[in-house]
C-alpha cells in the first residue's frame, strides 16, 4: 500500500483526537495530517474538480481500482487539507457500498469536531462529502 491517507483508519483518528484535551494538540494533529496528504500536481487542479469553499479552494478526483474508489484531493489551505485527510480516512479505497453505508455525521460527532470545525463554516467539507457520496452512488447504480 502506498502512503495514502487510507493509512489511518477512522477509528485511529477518533482515538487520537479523543486523547488530546486541548485545541492546540488537536489542531497540530490535523495540520500534520494535512502535511502528509499527498499534494495534487498543479496541472491536475482542473476547474471541474474544484469543490468551492467560501474562503479556500479544494479539489477532488477519483478513479476505480478493483471495485474500490481511490480518491485524490487537495486544498490551498492546510487545515482544510487535514480535514480532507480525516474524510479520506473514512472513504478512500472503499467500495461504493461501504462509502454509502458510512455514517459521516456520526463520525464527525465522534471526532467532536463539530464544536470547532463545523462543516457549515464555509470550509467546503460538506460539499466534498456530498461529492464523494454522489460518486459512490453513481458507481453503485452502474
Amino acid at each position, binding site marked *: 500500500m502506498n502512503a495514502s491517507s487510507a493509512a489511518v483508519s477512522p477509528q485511529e483518528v477518533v482515538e487520537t483526537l479523543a486523547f488530546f484535551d486541548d485545541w492546540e494538540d488537536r489542531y497540530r494533529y490535523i495540520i500534520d495530517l494535512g502535511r502528509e496528504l499527498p499534494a495534487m500536481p498543479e496541472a491536475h487542479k482542473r476547474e471541474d474538480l474544484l469543490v468551492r469553499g*467560501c*474562503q*479556500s479552494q479544494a479539489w477532488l478526483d477519483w478513479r476505480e481500482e478493483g471495485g474500490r474508489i481511490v480518491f485524490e484531493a487537495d486544498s490551498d*489551505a*492546510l*487545515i482544510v487539507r487535514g480535514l480532507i485527510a480525516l474524510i479520506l480516512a473514512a472513504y478512500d479505497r472503499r467500495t461504493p457500498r461501504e462509502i454509502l453505508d458510512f455514517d459521516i455525521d456520526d463520525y464527525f460527532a465522534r471526532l467532536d469536531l463539530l464544536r*470547532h470545525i463545523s462543516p457549515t463554516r464555509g*470550509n467546503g467539507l460538506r460539499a466534498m462529502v456530498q461529492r464523494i457520496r454522489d460518486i459512490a452512488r453513481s458507481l453503485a447504480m452502474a
Partner: protein
Amino acid sequence: MSARFDAERLRGVFPLLAQEINGKPLVYLDNAATTQKPDRVIDAVARYYRTINSNVHRGAHTLSDHATGAFEDARDAVRAFINAPSREQVIWTRGTTESINLVAHSFARGRLGAGDRILVSGMAHHSNIVPWQLAAQATGASVVPIPVTDDARLDLDAFRALLDARVRLVALEHVSNAMGTIHPVAEIIAAAHAAGVPVLLDGAQSVGHLPVDVQALDVDFYAFSGHKMFAPTGIGVLYGKRAWLEAMTPYQGGGEMIETVGFDHTTYARLPYRFEAGTPHIAGAIGMAAAIDWLGGIDREAAARHEDALLAHALELARELPGFRLLGRAPQKVAVLSFVIDGAHPQDVGTLLDQQGVAVRSGHHCAQPVMSRFGVPGTVRASFSLYNTHAEVERLFAALHKARSFL
C-alpha cells in the same frame, strides 16, 4: 489637548463584547463586516416591539401614530447625521446593497446606452460592481475599473484620463473595506462634476469611522448600512440629490409607494415614499436613530484618533511578526489591517485565531478584483472600531505568533 479616549469604559455598553469564545475573552476585530450594538440600540428596538409596534402611515389608531412618529423621527435623525438638505432625500433601504441596486435600476438604466461607461473603483465591493454590470448588460454599456496603485490608492491620473464623454456615472466607495483606504472623494467628485458626470459613493465603511456631510461632498448619491455603524442589520439609507430622485422611476412597486392605484393608471407617492414599497423595517429605523443618538454623545475626533493609534500599535507589533505582509498601505486609511503571512493561507490563520478567541475575517472580502490586483487569493483582515483596546491589539499579535508556529 483631549483626554485619552476611554475605550475600556465605552465597551461597557456593548453586552456582546463581554463574552468568551472558545474559552477565551472575545477579541472582536471584524468590525468592517458588522459592528456590535450598544445597549441604547438594543433597548430601542426592544422598546419598540414591547410598546409601540404597529404599521406606519396606515392605522387610524394611537399606536400607529406613535410608530409613524418614531419612524419619521428616525429619518430626521439620519438627515442631520449626514447633513442632507431635506428629509425627503433620505430613503430607507435594506442596506448599502439595496441602495446601490436602487440607483442602478432607477437612475442608471434610463441614462445608459450602447457604448456608454460607468467608472467603478478597482477595489469596489461586489455590491458596488454587480448592480452596474447588470445595468450595463441590459443597455449595452460597460463597467470600467478605475486602476489601483501599488499602495492601494485609486490612480487619480488614470481616473482623469478615463473621464471622457462616454462616462455616465462614477461609483466608488468612500472607504475601502478590503484595504481601509480613505479615498480623496471631494477631489474625485469635483473632477467628475467638471466633466458633467454624477457620482455615487458607497459609504458602508465610512459612517462607522468618519463624519459624513453629503452637502459638503456635493455627492449625487450616498449609500450606507446601519449595521456597520452600531445600528441593526436590515436597515440602510440611500441619500440622493433632489433633482435626481425626482426624475427617477420607482424601483419596486407595492404599498406605501403609490398615491392612487387603478388598473389603467397608477400615480406614485412623493419623495421619499416613492422608493419605499411595502412595510419598512420600522424597528431597524428606530434602532438606527438610537445609534446616531449614541454616536452623538461621543467625541468622534477622539474616537478616530484612538482607532488610528490602534492601527499604529498593530503596525509596530507587525514588524516583529516574520512573514507579515501588509496590503493597503495608503497614507489615508481607517483602522483596517489587511495582510497575509507568507506561507500561511488566510483561512488557516483565521481558524487558528478563532480558536484563541480572536474574530477576524479571512478571504477575499467580497472584493475579488482587488485581491487579483495584489496577486493574493485573499487576506486576513483585522478591522478595528472605537471600542477596541490596545490590549486587544496585543492579544491579536500574540495569537498571530501562535498561529504562525502551527503553520
